């Protein structure tokens, strides 16, 4: 009786995850786990819901708990691979993904996840093979087509990327990810109006979709050169891990300070003043620009016409 109740709660949580209502899914899974705190599948599903809510530390704990409780469950490995991919622990993520693929060789989603991991490991040929296998299993698989479009976009093959995005949109005309990748391709080709159309569509589906907001912000950054500069800087910094980000920022500070001290030591007063003012300007800009950017975005998103049924 209890197991059946838990299964129903997990199914309901999966429906909520599909609707991007991660908070609702988390609450349902907490209820499931209060009935049985050792239910591996509930922990694994909770890990994915927490990942959707961008609560990575919690997701990591839940995914590892699920594996600890049932190391033979394919789904626990699938969830662990997802979480470890987000943690950028790519070797571990690939190990778990391999277990998931081997346990269920006909699951296209496992292959698409594997492709995401391998492309981050810069193993593009292997990633492409996995995506092609996924498409053989399930022709028109939107996730696989979207991933291929992203890979072509990263390789700056805009025409090929547009071809895959078109196929993805034909396969699932209302899929947000397909619209977002199509918008990114249009943006890269300089077609801002079409990119904005795709961003609007995705935002109408879910006004809190971070990737859609990201696309919208990128469009704004292309149109506003001064704030666009901050956006590019932000993207450059945030591509790194937390440790990399810290090293980059502190490293920049140390380099500027060393140059300032040396300029003072050798009596290059004008260079010293230039460095001082330049650094102050950089600090002020990077402090205020995100705030201005956020406000601009908030006012823009307030005017996005939401679907009447939203």
């Amino acid at each position, binding site marked *: 009786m209890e197991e059946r109740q838990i299964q129903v709660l997990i199914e309901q949580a999966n429906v909520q995850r599909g609707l991007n209502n991660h*908070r609702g899914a988390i609450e349902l899974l907490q209820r499931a*786990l209060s009935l049985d705190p050792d239910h591996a599948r509930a922990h694994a599903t909770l890990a994915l819901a927490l990942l959707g809510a961008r609560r990575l530390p919690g997701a990591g704990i839940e995914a590892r708990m699920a594996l600890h409780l049932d190391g033979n469950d394919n789904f626990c490995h699938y969830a662990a691979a997802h979480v470890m991919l987000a943690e950028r622990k790519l070797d571990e993520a690939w190990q778990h993904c391999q277990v998931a693929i081997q346990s269920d060789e006909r699951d296209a989603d496992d292959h698409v996840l594997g492709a995401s991991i391998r492309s981050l490991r810069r193993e593009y040929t292997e990633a492409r093979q996995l995506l092609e296998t996924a498409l053989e299993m399930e022709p028109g698989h939107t996730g696989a087509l979207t991933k291929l479009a992203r890979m072509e976009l990263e390789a700056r093959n805009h025409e090929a990327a547009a071809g895959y995005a078109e196929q993805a949109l034909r396969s699932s005309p209302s899929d947000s990810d397909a619209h977002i990748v199509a918008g990114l391709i249009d943006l890269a080709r300089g077609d801002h109006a079409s990119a904005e159309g795709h961003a609007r569509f995705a935002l109408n589906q879910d006004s809190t979709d971070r990737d859609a907001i990201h696309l919208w912000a990128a469009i704004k950054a292309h149109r506003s050169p001064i704030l666009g500069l901050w956006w590019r800087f932000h993207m450059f910094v945030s591509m790194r891990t937390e440790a990399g980000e810290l090293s980059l920022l502190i490293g920049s500070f140390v380099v500027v300070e060393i140059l300032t001290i040396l300029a*003072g030591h050798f009596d290059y007063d004008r260079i010293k003043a230039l460095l001082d003012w330049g650094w102050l300007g950089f600090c002020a800009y990077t402090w205020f620009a995100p705030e201005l950017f956020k406000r601009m975005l908030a006012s823009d998103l307030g005017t996005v016409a939401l679907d009447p049924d939203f």
Partner: protein
Amino acid sequence: MSYQIADEPHETSLGAYVVNPSGPLLASMMCGAWMTWPWFAFNAIAMGSPTKKKELILCAVALGGTILLGALMLALVDAGWIPLGTPYKFAMLAISTWKLAMAYYISTVQSRTFHVYEYYGGNVRAASGIIGTGFWLKGIVFALSDDPLWIIIVAGGL
């Protein structure tokens, strides 16, 4: 009773005084370390952070490290190993870098819990008034002692 996820903050009676961790980080540049470490520690307790122990240890390490580096540097200056002027400035830069790196790291750790705290609708107080007060108080704090080690400990990262 609902299952509690490990990253969830616990409710505390000090919830009304929680600030965004970027507040204490900014205080490390504007006001000084005298304000930063205690503020980070207080914020961790007020938020009911599940990583409270780690954050408190990091604050203690930051303070202890600053005292150690400061004392070492002053000893080397007294012994004539670090002459005043450019070498002294480089030594001070090492201490500033230590303070900034620690403040940035603690802010990153605390931000993870802050994100979840906000997710559950936790109360957040504006930090600007506190930073403003700290900025005016820093002269008084610095003047509490003439010992150069004191200045090194309480000064900011910049």
